[in-house]
């Protein structure tokens, strides 16, 4: 995975972030299945290395756009467990004051544009952010997270072509988890990779192991550097797997048993733990401490969210326009 060029601190930070996402998702799933949490959820267990590797290569004032499956992206970009948990409970203390919910998580102050749940809808929005950076001479980068399913929306083509045309500082990150909802990617895409589509726009397209946070980080660093230095967009395809249902109670029976088994064996967190031990970056004790801290943070957030005030029903009428008259 690496040649020892990372500090232990950096590696353990990646680990902590991935673990936070995993535990957050597991806790949320439980709350949801128990009927304590309202709404609907799309979770990213198994895809943590994508979010964490990508965001580790970003600066604080870079921005991301996300999808119907946003929890990992939001946490990786620096949103807090607390503001997200409260949003999932629909509380006023949530990042969107309960207006958004799971599918519209975001916090502009952390560089997270509220997630867009219309597949493909966020791709040009990241392009537009990049356009603003270019027009105003800011050295910032925009990232669009999307799934493999999103590349078949027409807007994918429009957005990538415009980014190429204007040489924009944007990275298009495709988390290829082999399925768009229940539909296998091989059924709806004829090319071997999604990354190869970048060739028609004349910018780089790279496919990397999305379950290895360092591989993701390295590929992303190249893409970000290129974007920041005026080199234009990159299409980054991260190969990964969703080891939970598509949404809510989906048992994912369309995923073949052997494929699932293989995916579970190469899920990113267990793999990274092995790497940390093999490289002697960490002891079990240290990881246990991280694990405990993560669990405490999540439990505190659950407690805080559950005891936070509900919004007033009439608040539904607020926040539409800046000027109400």
């Amino acid at each position, binding site marked *: 995975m690496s040649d020892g060029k990372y500090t232990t601190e950096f590696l353990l930070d990646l680990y902590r972030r991935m673990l936070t996402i995993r535990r957050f998702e597991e806790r949320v799933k439980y709350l949801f299945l128990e009927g304590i949490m309202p709404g609907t959820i799309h979770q990213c267990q198994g895809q943590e290395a994508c979010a964490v590797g990508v965001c580790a290569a970003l600066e604080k004032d870079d921005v991301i756009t996300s999808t119907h499956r946003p929890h990992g992206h939001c946490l990786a970009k620096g949103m807090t467990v607390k503001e997200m948990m409260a949003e999932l409970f629909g509380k006023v203390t949530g990042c969107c004051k309960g*207006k958004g919910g799971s599918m519209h998580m975001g916090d502009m102050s952390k560089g997270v544009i509220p997630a867009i749940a219309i597949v493909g809808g966020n791709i040009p929005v990241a392009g537009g952010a990049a356009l603003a950076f270019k027009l105003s001479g800011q050295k910032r980068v925009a990232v669009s997270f999307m799934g493999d399913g999103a590349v078949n929306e027409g807007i994918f083509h429009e957005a990538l072509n415009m980014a190429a045309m204007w040489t924009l500082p944007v990275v298009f990150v495709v988390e290829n988890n082999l399925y768009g909802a229940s539909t296998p990617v091989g059924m709806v895409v004829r090319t071997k990779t999604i990354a190869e589509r970048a060739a028609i726009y004349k910018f780089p397209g790279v496919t990397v192991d999305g379950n290895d946070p360092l591989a993701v980080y390295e590929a992303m660093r190249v893409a970000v550097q290129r974007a920041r230095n005026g080199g234009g967009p990159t299409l980054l395809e991260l190969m990964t797997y969703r080891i939970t249902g598509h949404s809510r109670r989906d048992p994912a029976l369309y995923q073949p048993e052997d494929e699932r088994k293989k995916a579970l064996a190469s899920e990113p967190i267990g793999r990274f733990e092995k790497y940390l031990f093999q490289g002697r970056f960490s002891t079990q004790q240290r990881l246990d401490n991280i694990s405990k801290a993560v669990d405490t943070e999540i439990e505190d957030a659950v407690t805080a969210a559950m005891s936070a005030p509900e919004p007033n029903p009439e608040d539904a009428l607020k926040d539409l326009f800046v000027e109400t008259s």
Partner: protein
Amino acid sequence: MVESLLMKKLSIVEALREGIRQEMIRDERVFCIGEDIAIPGGWGGAFTVTLGMEEEFPERMLNTPISEAGIFGYACGAALMGMRPIADVQYSDFLFCAMDQVANNIAKLRYMSGGKLTMPVVLRAPVGVTGRGAQHSQCIETFFLPVPGLKIACPATAYDALGILRTAVRCDDPVLICEHKLLYGSKGARKESGAVDASSDIPDEDYTVPLGKAVIRREGKDVTIVATLLMMHRSMQAAEVLAQEGIDAEVIDPRSLVPFDWETVKASVGKTGRVITVEESPKRNGIGAEIAATLAEEAAELLVAPIKRIAAPNTPAPFSPPMEKFYIPQVDNIVQAVRDVMAY
């Protein structure tokens, strides 16, 4: 007695599934096109309507990429060549992604051709504000009211869903069927919390339900309530509450918005003189607006009180349950509106 033996109780999803199956058997030109509609081990679309149908019709259940403009554009082209596609989106909100194909092509090509072609496309779209936030909640019916060239149906019961589906498939014009998530009766992992029973006894015969023919769900003499889909069911509940107060409400379910059964509504208003409209989408430019304007224009002399529109506010749907509940018209809102109108 013999007839009831032939009846079977079906939910809306079961009725639609049965209807689509029968139409595909009856007519080889009928095919389904949509996302996640034909994956073994999958869900049969977002709400299980086509569950398992890929086994019976491996060639005619077209599972697409996530490409709404493509789905409806392909449906349009195939219909022009004589096929009879049933195209669906997983949530009606995604019709916006296909707006050009729906509003500019499917709705207009026949007219632009001087009536020289037909467009037998069925468009299926789940609607309803159901705990998913602003982009999975819209009741798209009203967006299409100002798009001439589309028929719009809103079946609130399994009986109507099946009858309207048959009519739509056999119709040479495009028909948008708006199906309510809470009325479907989806089961298993796709079950909706807060679902309302809309199942019906379905006769074992090839009946159809015409477009443009309202049904009076409850007869009454004091006030007319016009509502479709979930709001029809809520209006029926409201009518029961009102009955205890001695107010006799008539509940009309138009079943289709285009064409619209003005005759039935006007006849009812002639009797009651009072009208309430109920809808789940924002009030501005909604179904109620259309009904109120038309009655004001064509039947003002029948009214003894101002028309009252119950609708969602002019905002997107909020996520948080207390705000969402406030957003969606509730039985209490309908009851109160009727009291107000009666007190006028």
